[in-house]
């Protein structure tokens, strides 16, 4: 089971989260250490919520389980992020009011993804799309 791929629907609060649940379950079922499963789950959840809240037509979350690392890629087709540095600032959020009332939009999503990864990479083209690649080494025990 080296690769799992999930598609996430834009704006659908009720079904979003199921990809992260399954990722956490499948990673644990493989006997991967709990701390790593937790980090992978957090990265996947935050990525999934970003797709649900901000991507105009949803996107995909892909997890690859490699012998040396877990690699999670979150991709969408836009709208893209104008200022990545600003988006990465803890507390900065563009979430709509309805999402904030549901406990989203704390401005911690990308920060949580970065803090739970050993390698974090984000590329975005306004008008095009965003791609986030997170790698969690299986030999480290950070976070």
């Amino acid at each position, binding site marked *: 089971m080296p690769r799992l791929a999930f598609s996430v629907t834009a704006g659908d*609060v*009720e*079904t*979003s*989260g*199921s990809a*992260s*649940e399954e990722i*956490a*379950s499948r990673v644990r079922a493989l006997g991967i250490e*709990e701390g790593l499963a*937790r980090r992978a*789950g*957090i990265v*996947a*959840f*935050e990525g999934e*919520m970003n797709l649900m809240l901000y991507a105009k037509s949803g996107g995909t979350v892909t997890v690859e389980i490699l012998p040396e690392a877990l690699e999670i890629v979150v991709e969408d087709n836009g709208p893209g992020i104008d200022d990545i540095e600003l988006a990465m600032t803890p507390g900065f959020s563009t979430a709509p009011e309805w999402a904030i009332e*549901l*406990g*989203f939009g*704390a*401005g*911690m*999503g990308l*920060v*949580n993804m970065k*803090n739970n990864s050993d390698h974090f990479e984000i590329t975005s083209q306004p008008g095009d799309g965003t791609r986030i690649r997170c790698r969690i080494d299986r030999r480290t025990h950070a976070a």
Partner: protein
Amino acid sequence: MRLDEIVRALGLEILTPVADLSRTVDNGYTGDLLSDVLAGARSGDLWTTIQRHANVVAVAKVTGIAAIVIAGGARPSGDVLQKAEAEGVPILATPDPLFAITGRIHRLLFPEEG
């Protein structure tokens, strides 16, 4: 302390009868911002919140939280409860406001701190 002992001691209502209550609870976490809970809650924590939509189940599952306590008399939908049972995440409810139930849980888990 075992989760079922906490449920009894605090008179919490069990909304997911199928979920396992034999887990040990080590600590608690209170919060309504999902990213904050992801960053701060630990496996085995009892999570008190006023959120009740489907994503609380995902947050609990990912972090390994022992159970969710929904405060203030709020109730999740049947779909959310079904999902919680399928994922093995117990959901408990209390009419107590968030502040009060957090204090009661803290006193129960850490009696020496008063």
